[in-house]
């Protein structure tokens, strides 16, 4: 008797839902073991993380604040991953979006009518994110340059550009040398609805739904799925894969750029340290755990945001490092990846009798 893996004809529906759930539980257990090693009670830690993130409306609004950029970047990264285009540059695309929105908010508000400042800032953020993502996309399609490294390197370039601006050219002259631009005019503030939670939430949710419809009900969505899943067949059917990649990656970057524009116009109201705090990397976990489904990404984003806020809480309450939440997040993908074998393959036990049957 021996065990073999047999490729499934179709992806298992049950496994698609089960694998992320089980993976999350496994990551809780693994991190729990780690906590015990560090002489900390995992149950108390987890419950205070949970209370910290979801325990009250005020705490929950903070979770939503972090969920919004994760939703947007998660949907964007998920779209790129569908094409097997490994865009790990969401962080830089977000920062560049934030920089562009800041530019509008600081320098265009003098001559734009007030009601146009905010929409223009967000629009410029979207365009900047798209263009920043466009660099690896063009290099990939026209020169076959590896997109993983290019998109990642551009993160550093974007972050350093932003730093150069808020430490240098754009620094607030009245800020006593504090690194950051001056406060945006009120006309560039994205409205908040409760605590720091802002209307970007509704836009993100709406875009998640729209993205799902586009992917599942339009010709372009079909072409994206096809080009990623089976490029040879897509080519035979007359799909221009290069064009599909470029349009999809521009959209992918646009999502992250929008996230960056929201961060500066709704949260900080200026460009300063703390824009690049890893949302673009967590987006990879969001996208993969949501199995690249934009609607699922919305929910996973809230969960991941909860881990971040919970991590901050246990730092304040129990003196544990805030990186706790990030460790938990990092652990999730391991069981997830191991489990993906079961969505594509089934375990088969070969005994003598099955062998004879096959013969």
């Amino acid at each position, binding site marked *: 008797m021996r065990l073999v893996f047999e490729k499934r004809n179709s992806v298992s529906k049950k496994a698609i839902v089960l694998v992320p759930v089980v993976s999350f539980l496994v990551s809780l257990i693994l991190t729990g073991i780690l906590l015990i090693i560090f002489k900390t009670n995992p149950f108390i830690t987890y419950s205070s993380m949970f209370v910290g993130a979801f325990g009250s409306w005020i705490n929950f609004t903070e979770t939503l604040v972090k969920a919004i950029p994760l939703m947007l970047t998660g949907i964007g990264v998920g779209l790129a991953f569908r094409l097997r285009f490994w865009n790990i540059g969401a962080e830089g695309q977000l920062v560049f979006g934030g920089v562009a929105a800041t530019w509008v908010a600081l320098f265009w508000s003098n001559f734009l009518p007030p009601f146009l400042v905010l929409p223009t800032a967000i629009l410029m953020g979207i365009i900047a994110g798209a263009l920043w993502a466009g660099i690896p996309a063009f290099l990939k399609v026209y020169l*076959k340059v590896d997109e993983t490294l290019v998109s990642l*390197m551009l993160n550093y370039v974007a972050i350093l550009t932003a730093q150069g601006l808020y430490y240098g050219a754009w620094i607030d002259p009245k800020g006593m040398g504090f690194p950051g631009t001056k406060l945006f005019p009120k006309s560039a503030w994205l409205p908040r609805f409760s605590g720091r939670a802002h209307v970007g939430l509704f836009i993100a949710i709406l875009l998640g739904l729209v993205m799902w419809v586009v992917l599942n009900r339009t010709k372009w969505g079909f072409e994206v799925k096809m080009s990623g899943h089976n490029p040879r067949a897509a080519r035979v059917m007359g799909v221009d894969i290069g064009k599909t990649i470029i349009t999809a990656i521009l959209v992918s970057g646009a999502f992250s750029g929008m996230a960056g524009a929201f961060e500066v116009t709704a949260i900080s109201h200026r460009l300063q340290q703390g824009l690049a705090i890893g949302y673009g990397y967590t987006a990879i976990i969001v996208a993969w755990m949501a199995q690249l489904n934009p609607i699922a990404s919305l929910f996973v984003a809230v969960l991941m945001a909860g881990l971040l806020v919970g991590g901050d809480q246990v730092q304040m309450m129990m003196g544990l490092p805030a990186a706790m939440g990030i460790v938990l997040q990092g652990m999730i*993908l391991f069981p997830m990846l191991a489990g993906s074998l079961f969505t594509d393959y089934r375990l088969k036990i070969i005994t003598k009798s099955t062998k004879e049957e096959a013969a």
Partner: protein
Amino acid sequence: MIALLASILAITLRAGTSLIYATIGEIYTERSGILNLGLEGMMLMGAVSAFATVYYTGSLLLALLVAMLTGVVLSSIHAFLSITMRANQVVSGLSITLFGTGFASFLGQRLGPESNGHYLIGLIGNKFTPVKIPFLSNLPVLGALFNQDILTYIVYLIIPAAWFFMYKTRAGLNLRAVGESPQTADAMGINVSKVRYIYTILGGTLVALGGAHLSLSYAPGWTDNITGGRGWIVIALVIFSMWNPSRAIWGALLFGGINAIQFRLQATGTTISAPLLNMLPYIVTIVVLVLMTWIETMNKKVGAPEALAVPYMRGEK
């Protein structure tokens, strides 16, 4: 002038050492057909574990061993996921980096002594110091080659050894066969999975050593993100060296050289803005990648293993 050249060469080698360890490690891993994008995470974990060990025991040797063990553990996870579980290697590597980055930062805030609020940041531990080789270290300019720490001297030996092993031994031939055509290697009686496990783990060990060099010699101590993207630059360096260990030196010298020049310029107070200067390594990486890819399309073959990042399953095409 000579003094300036010597100092640039000295800093280049010091900065290049960690890159060379990691580049050779990843070359071996990729040659077996496994792409490991977890370098950044493994280097950070190597750096933090090495520094914590040296802080408490004072033993540099033990610190290196602990870092290597960390590399073994993390690369085993990647090997298990990508070889046994046939997971997507890009995502598996990314998750090693995400986990390693987060966990290293966690440990940096947890492993320290109580007096420092459990932080490792800001502590001083034992470190590798340059060892002068008599006579040779007195040479003009080139003397810098012989006034380095032990880890750099080991690099001088590892580069030819890694080249010899890969191209002149049976085991090296098997390794290349597995990366080029696992089907053929399997038919030749080579255990594909075993070879891939061995070199993924060996590679991870070297990568973590590269990380340890950062916290024990190049920038002694621990800070979050001490690697500053070196793990990713190394992945580009593997392409730059065309998967040949003997060429790993050039990429490392190029990037070590950029570091050295940044160092000098910043020390002398330049008019070039600091952020622009700091961007240089990342922009050069992109330029190098574009150039290498362009050369590949011209010459058809740069040396990427044929079966890189393709999971192997018997009887499946």
